[in-house]
């Protein structure tokens, strides 16, 4: 398995690995750590891994790493390892929701859309948005407020169309 093939498989499986780890640990950041550790383990064993076994193996390793992290975080709490290992990751409709959200956000005016995407998708703070756009903080807040209002109207309109 080449580096590019490995990367492609890992990036494809990353959301599922993340959700699985989150379902065990309950914390997104710790789950991300568990996923990274699992990826390192997979990288070391990639010579003996077949592409078709990648999904099962990656999820198993992620579960084990998550249980290890959970034990470190809560050493006194008994953990039912068997049930956690058998647990399936929750179904994911995040892609559909994101597609719909993006569709609605793209209908907003340029400035409002930029402010919403910077704040939520890119994770920038208001100060960072100020620096990036050159707007004042009051102006950023006002822009965001107008964007929320527009989105509410857009969702209402979408629901009406669907019904």
């Amino acid at each position: 398995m080449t580096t590019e093939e490995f990367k492609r498989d890992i990036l494809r499986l990353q959301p599922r690995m993340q959700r699985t780890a989150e379902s065990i640990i309950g914390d997104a950041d710790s789950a991300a750590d568990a996923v990274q550790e699992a990826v390192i383990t997979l990288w070391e064993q990639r010579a003996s891994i077949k592409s078709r076994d990648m999904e099962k193996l990656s999820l198993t390793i992620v579960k084990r790493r998550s249980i290890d992290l959970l034990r470190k975080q809560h050493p006194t709490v008994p953990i039912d390892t068997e049930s956690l290992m058998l647990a399936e990751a929750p179904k994911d409709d995040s892609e559909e929701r994101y597609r719909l959200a993006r569709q609605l956000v793209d209908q907003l005016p340029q400035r409002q859309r930029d402010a919403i995407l910077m704040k939520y998708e890119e994770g920038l703070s208001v100060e960072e948005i100020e620096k990036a756009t050159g707007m004042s903080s009051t102006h950023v807040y006002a822009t965001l407020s107008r964007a929320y209002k527009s989105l509410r109207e857009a969702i209402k309109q979408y629901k009406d169309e669907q019904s």
Partner: protein
Amino acid sequence: MDYGTARLRDCETDSPRSPAVPKSRSQNILRLNFEHLLKRGTRMNTENEMNEDVRQLLDSLEEHGKNVRRQQELSDLIDRLAEEEKTVETPRKHRKLTPLWWVMGAAAACLLLWLLIKPSMKETPETNKEILVEETETLDSVGTEVKEVILEEPVIKEELLAEETPVVPQKSQTKKEKPRAEVVEEIVEQPALAEVTPTKNEETTNIGSNNIPNESETPSTVQSPKRRVIRSLNLVCYECQKDPELYTKPVMEDKTLFGQPQDPNMKNGALAFEIKLN
């Protein structure tokens, strides 16, 4: 927001109801607190503007953004792991191959040169001639030395020597001087030495195989333990030889620790003797 600011403006402007009195310090503090609450209230209003649908929509955007960042981190991690693997592998290859090839090449070149030069060195007749000339010269010089020494040897009877020198060589001496005897044999086999025939002088008698020249005159290799002992008892006196009356035979009354007769004149292994001179 508009309502708040309007109220703030109302507070700030001088209304006909409010008398035009100078603003006290407490009034200023109240005004600042009111502005602060007003700002906070506007933010709360903007948050409240979002209903649940909008919140979910923004959450999905946020989640997607986080996932994209995590994927980017994983991609960087994989790239870093690949780079580390490459940097670890490449020096190993160089370490294995480069020095080996250099050493092997140099060794092969040296071997070839040696093989090419060696036969040509052997075949050169000039060098062989030079070596032969040097050998004959050295042998001749040794032969003449031996000749001279033999001519100067004193007259001593073998029987007397055998009786008077019952010396047993020590183990350490034999061990050390064994190879010397071998060297002597080799030299005797040389043709140049064979030519050296000790010419018997009328006045002197050759003592045969026990006759060994002095250490200072002959090479040190041509010595054996027995011969050395004999040399130590080498009582050479040309005056005595010429006139035997002058020579006094040593008295052998005293005995050594080993019960052998000892000359009283013997001191420190060397035999001192008196010569009756005129």
